[in-house]
């Protein structure tokens, strides 16, 4: 992953907390002193019940906040993989919710990261925090997000109306991070074929 800029497209069903997931990453970048931008799916892209957003975290001021070729796609459901898979930069990363997306023949020029986000969220007691599991997992890969800073900031990002969910959101974030740290995400032949030089 580039140490200077991370361009991320996040996608999933409406209701999976995609926009909030994007906001968490953008906040994390900002609180780590980076330049950030966040654009929600808007206009024709919203058709079909999927939501997506674009986040850029950068060492330098962001010129275009629009992302045609993302470094990373975080996919929470199957249609999102189908839609954005082809756009990922060669050598980029596809991080997907393996609870809802089965293993399949992916491109062999990208890094695949399988996170059973919905299952982890279920274990924690609330399927809706799968997005924060993904945020935690992404934080482990990111060069521009500081994990400790994020753990501190996360409770402030939970809206006042959902304060009772602050703890479980934080737990989900920590579990996602740990999952990657323990390298449980790797699988199959892809790992070896795509790992080179990334």
């Amino acid at each position, binding site marked *: 992953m580039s140490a200077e800029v991370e361009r991320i497209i996040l996608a999933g069903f409406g209701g999976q907390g995609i926009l909030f997931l994007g906001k968490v990453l*953008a906040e994390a970048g*900002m609180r780590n002193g980076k330049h*950030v*931008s*966040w654009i929600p799916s808007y*206009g*024709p892209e919203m058709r079909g019940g999927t939501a997506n957003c674009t986040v850029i975290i950068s060492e330098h001021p*962001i010129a275009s*906040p629009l992302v045609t070729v993302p470094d990373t796609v975080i996919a929470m459901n199957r249609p999102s993989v189908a839609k954005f898979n082809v756009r990922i930069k060669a050598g980029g990363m596809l991080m997907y919710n393996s609870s809802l997306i089965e293993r399949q023949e992916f491109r062999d020029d990208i890094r695949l990261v399988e996170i059973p986000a919905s299952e982890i969220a279920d274990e924690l007691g609330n399927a809706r925090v799968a997005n924060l599991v993904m945020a935690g997992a992404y934080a482990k890969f990111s060069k521009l997000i500081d994990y400790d800073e994020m753990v501190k900031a996360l409770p402030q990002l939970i809206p006042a109306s959902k304060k009772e969910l602050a703890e479980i959101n934080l737990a989900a974030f920590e579990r996602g991070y740990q999952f990657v740290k323990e390298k449980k995400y790797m699988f199959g032949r892809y790992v070896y074929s795509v790992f080179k030089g990334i």
Partner: protein
Amino acid sequence: MADKVLMKGNEVIGEAAVLAGCRYYFGYPITPQSELPAYLARRLPEVEGVFLQAESEVAAINMVYGAASAGARVMTSSSSPGVSLKQEGLSYIAGAEMPCVVVNVVRGGPGLGNISPAQSDYWQATRGGGHGDYRTLVLAPNSVQEMADMTIAAFELADRFRNPVLLLVDGILGQMMEPVQLPAPTTYDINQKPWALGNPNPRKGGRNLCSTIFLDVEQLEEHNWHLYQKYQVVTDEFAKGAYKHLAVETHAVDDAEIVLVGYGIISRILKTVVEKARKRGIKAGLVRPKTLWPFPSQVLADLAAKTKQFLVVEMSCGQMVEDVKLAVDGKKPVFFFGRTGGTVPSDFEILNEVDKLVRPD
């Protein structure tokens, strides 16, 4: 200075308006600007202001007219079809020289069009839009930070010139979040305008009148030339650099063989195009009009002597390109590339256009 906060463009306009001393907002729901009225509906009561959802855009702009004539700092916002409805009121407001700020989060047209981002209201914004000989100042931010800064500047310009000021924003800027540093609040007193209706302070002539009717042809002509003179003052002050930070931004133009011209979100994409073009050995530069009226013609006229060609990029079938051609005055070729209907051109396709122009073979 406060810490940076991550906020949506539409909401930042609302907060900046409050910080500028705006306590009155009148509007009517329309996508994609709905976050702005929703924000102010929550925020204005906290500062003893008035948020009122009007029965139509026509009513909203006329409530703005009333509130402005009573001395308040006041704002309305809408998106393209709604701004068409506001043109009647804008003509009166400009004619009566009432300061106010009008936000247009532009969407695709004509007609109902769609809710996707567009720049096809440039002519409407910069040419007046309503009936009669009048002008409105038009500011076009390209980042969330600028949406804050330019909202505050819009209120100041409106009061300074007693004129409506338009903030021309596209749907992407309205929807996007970026870190923003909000300035300190301004205190504003509705009695600081001696001409305002209901101002209790002694005034010249005994009473105040806010009107646009001049049945006497000589009086109307005199009034129209008075407005024209004012617009000349605005143009001159901008041309002389009194509002340098608001007028225009240039990037890598000194040695540019091709100068790209675009405003709003397009200018951000063009900056990426310039960087990519330079990596390919193409000397590209960028001119970004930040204020669309008065248009920063001089910068383009000066560059016409140095560069080889211009490429104007817009999310329209070509509107601002006319102002660029007027500024360049035939000295160098001016080309156009546009996407419309809600499509945002990618840096790749623009780069491709640049390639074709610079290396025609």
